[in-house]
């Protein structure tokens, strides 16, 4: 009979605590839409934050509530968007595939150095003291963006510039946020002509510090006045759709090579 005492004691304790938990559950329950779980499972689970939400789950919750359109997940792309749209019975919008692009050609050879930088080896730290190159707009070449990339789509070239593998790039925007000098941004993959410079220095100064800087000569603007303008001594593409494909050779006459087509990796 002695065995009954511990058994009953433990049973009573267990009942007591479970009653407490049941009571607490009634008070503190959080209702969650089961659709959130289903949508969440369709997402890539990269938790990169490119959609503007804190993770795939938060994005799924927003889509189910109707606060975010399903095509806002750049990593999943069209396939995932259509899948979600089918499940929820809504329509997915059109997706423009974007990729990250590097807007600097200031390689170690092209851009003049300010001296050897021996501080903390991140762009963020180097930027605080003005950087390692004479150009105060160019790429610092220490690879914060490469570290930020969660998809293994970037590497540092030997010349000291980040290179993006466009097949792997999901346009999550992590590298864009990581760069203290805004060298990177997201562009439609169909955009062929890219400005490879961020320097807002006047032509002579820009040319002095970097061989590949935009000197605002206006050759590209004369080739396509509708599409390209000069702003702050820098060529700027206002609307890439207006670039006439026949004029591309004229644009590529750029004396400093700071605007043109992205060279494919095998052409380097």
């Amino acid at each position, binding site marked *: 009979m002695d065995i009954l005492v*511990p058994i009953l*004691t433990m049973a009573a304790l267990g009942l007591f605590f479970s009653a407490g938990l049941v009571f*607490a*559950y009634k008070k503190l329950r959080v209702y969650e839409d089961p659709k959130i779980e289903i949508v969440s499972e369709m997402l890539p689970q990269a938790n990169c934050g490119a959609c503007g939400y804190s993770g795939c*789950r938060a994005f799924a919750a927003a889509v189910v509530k109707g606060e975010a359109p399903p095509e806002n997940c750049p990593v999943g792309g069209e396939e995932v968007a259509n899948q979600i749209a089918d499940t929820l019975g809504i329509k997915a919008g059109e997706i423009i595939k974007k990729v990250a692009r590097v807007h600097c050609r200031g390689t170690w050879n092209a851009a003049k150095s300010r001296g050897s930088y021996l501080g903390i080896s991140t762009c963020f730290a180097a930027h605080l003291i003005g950087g390692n190159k004479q150009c105060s707009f160019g790429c610092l070449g220490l690879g914060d963006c490469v570290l930020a990339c969660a998809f293994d789509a970037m590497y540092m070239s030997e010349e000291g510039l980040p290179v993006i593998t466009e097949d792997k790039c999901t346009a999550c925007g992590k590298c864009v946020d990581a760069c203290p000098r805004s060298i990177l941004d997201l562009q439609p993959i169909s955009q062929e002509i890219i400005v490879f410079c961020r320097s807002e220095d006047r032509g002579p100064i820009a040319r002095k510090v970097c061989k590949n800087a935009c000197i605002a000569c206006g050759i590209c603007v004369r080739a396509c006045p509708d599409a390209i303008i000069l702003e702050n001594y820098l060529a700027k593409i206002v609307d890439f759709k207006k670039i006439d494909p026949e004029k591309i050779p004229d644009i590529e006459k750029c004396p400093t090579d700071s605007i043109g087509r992205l060279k494919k990796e095998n052409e380097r």
Partner: protein
Amino acid sequence: MEIIALFFSAILINNFVLHYFLGICPFLGVSKKIDSALSMGLAVTFVMSITAAVSWAINHWILIPYQLDYLQIVSFILVIASLVQLVEMFIRKISPPLYQALGIYLPLITTNCAIFFLALMAALKNYNFIETVIFGIGSGLGFTLAIILMAGIREQLDLADVPEALKGAGISLIVAGIMALAFLGFSGMIK
């Protein structure tokens, strides 16, 4: 006076993390950012203080009178598990982002040896009710202090030039070891 000594010795000298090396899992897992470390510390402190009180009551009103001391372990586990469930529900209701940030480490408080050790230690040392509760709060605050210090150091470590092989867990364990050495300096201050 003795109670004050007990309180501070639980925080500084017999710090659960740095003296007994208990509760290392959340100590390393949630110490990447100061604010989530603080929340984790407070959650553990809460569970510890309530566990201390409830386990004392069970021990002295049920287990000892009926000579059921051998049920201490299993009944304390029951207390801790239920309390952690309660805290989990509470945090999920009050602050979903915090719930996300603590992640798996929140239910893992259940298996946090520090809390279990606290309940057993208080029973072993025959503390009275007030001493047990003070011991629980002190130990919880000691855990909070340790995890916040660790998070502060790890936030700085992000900028340090750590050798490739030691990045992540390696350097964290070394830091924890050095912190334990530093805390050894407190021993002997209170008998």
